[in-house]
């Protein structure tokens, strides 16, 4: 379509949203960043329904950055539904969270996340993490044909 494909950030904390935007910008990543604030909205966005019904026909985002602790539907459930649907089965999903719990790590990978990144407290480290993430998933990595859309 026209212009680079966007990044979908699923995050309910406005501070984290601000800082993530800033970190990606500082890391030199220019893709537009769409933000949804809970799990239900994330799925609506991806499947173009509800408030996002107008997106029907729009391409999927290039990358989903998914927090685990979300209002309504948590990140694990969102990931499970993404992987359960043929349209989004191959969508790159990176878990971006504060949690260092092994349980979360294991569950995320067993639901098929592509990466698990723990947000560092130090902002400089966060910027570095965002840079590496962007470079890998948006530049180096080759997405599957048609984003897996059947």
């Amino acid at each position, binding site marked *: 379509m026209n212009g680079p494909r966007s990044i979908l950030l699923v995050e309910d904390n406005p501070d984290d949203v601000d800082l993530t935007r800033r970190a990606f910008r500082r890391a030199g990543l220019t893709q537009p960043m769409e933000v949804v604030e809970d799990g239900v909205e994330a799925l609506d966005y991806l499947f173009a329904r509800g408030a996002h019904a107008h997106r029907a026909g729009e391409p999927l985002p290039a990358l989903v950055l998914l927090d685990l602790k979300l209002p309504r539907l948590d990140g694990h459930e969102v990931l499970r539904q993404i992987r359960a649907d043929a349209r989004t089965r191959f969508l790159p999903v990176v878990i971006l969270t504060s949690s260092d719990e*092994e349980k979360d790590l294991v569950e995320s990978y067993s639901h098929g996340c592509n990466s698990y990144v723990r947000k560092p407290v130090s902002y400089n480290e966060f910027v570095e993490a965002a840079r590496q993430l962007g470079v890998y998933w948006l530049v180096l990595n080759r997405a599957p044909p048609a984003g897996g859309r059947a």
Partner: protein
Amino acid sequence: MPETEPRRFRHLLLRAVLLPLGLLLLLAGILMGAVGGLIQAQEEARHSQEALTRLERVRQLLIDRETGLRGYLLTGKPAFLAPYQSAGQMLPSAVEALEHSLAGEPEQRAWMKALRERWRDWERFADEELSLFHQGGDWLAVVRSGAGKIRMDAIRATLDAVLAETRQRATLRGLEAERAGRTVLVAGGLWTLAVGLLLAWFSRRQLILLAREYGASLARVSAQADALRASEARLESRVAQRTHELTAANKELESFSYSVSHDLRSPLRAIDGFAQALLEDERPRLSPEGLRLLSRLQAAATRMGQLIDDLLQLSRVTRAEVQRETVDLSALATSVLHELRQREPARDVTCTLQPGLLARGDPRLFRVLLENLLGNAWKFTSKRSGAHIEFFSETVEGVPHYVVRDNGVGFDMAYAGKLFSPFQRMHKPSDFPGTGIGLATVQRIVHRHRGEISAQATPGAGATFRFTLQEAQA
């Protein structure tokens, strides 16, 4: 009444064993007495028989003497004198023997006195006859007078009387011995029968008592078993309840930790991030003091983040399921030290690691343990040259002790008691950074592997940590 049972049992034992034993001993004593009487009776019978034989012998010797003398007087042949003389030689000892045999008979004195007198009388008369014969006197007239015969008849009469008496007595004693034997036999038999019946009766009684006792004990035991089962069931339900409560508490703690991990870190990241944003965007408008304060803000946020991380690790060490596998601690230590070296390549530290130290337990927890202990050693040797870190094992009383030793700043043993409590520090944060949670974590890991840890140190001369590890508890 279980407390009276030993006494009852003793009582039972007494009746069942000691009483029959006593009766048997009594019986043995009485039988022995009876048998003794029997033996004595037999001895006396034998004695009487012997006296009879000796009486016959004396009588024979006297007859030999008389007939020898008579033959000599009639024929004048000295050959006839031989029996006379030999009987004369033997007679005194035969009489002596007879007297000995008769000893104990009531009339013995009278008999022997009469016998000896009559014998001596005859001897005197025989001597007279012999001397008359030798002098050529009228010996025939003496013989014819019948005085010798009278004397010998008197002896014979005496001997016959004694013989008759002794024979009668011998017969009597034989009968007595026989009767005694029969008595012993019958009495012994009866007694044995009585004791046997008594024993049988006692045994039966004892068995009945024991059976009753056994039944009572059985009932008691089964009642106790029932009570035990009931209390066990109660205990089990209580354990189940406690387990349920504990699981709930653990779950609560888990979600608490989870929210700590999630929710406390976000504002910190915001503080650090926005401070950084300020520094980046507003730097030209900030005073030097403002810049300094912002960097202090960031440092504090970073430190708080570290504290949260360390606390979470401490709580995870307590909650985590412990795996059990054989872990090469030496390899683990090598890898930890390698990481430390990479982080501070400028440091010159000599490390001595004993190879092949194995332990059974959780590899992740062992890594955290060694990261903390070796990390401490690394940190507290940072202010000296010739830093040396050792990791080895020594066996004390058959138990392997793992030792991490350094030659760093050490600490004052006066505060050693606080060493393993969280947030306790031995040094100022400006001297050595750290949250003071590492050693608490180490101790929990050691305890979860049923081990002990202790530390020794001298200020300025290094610290030594010794710990044991047993197979982790489930």
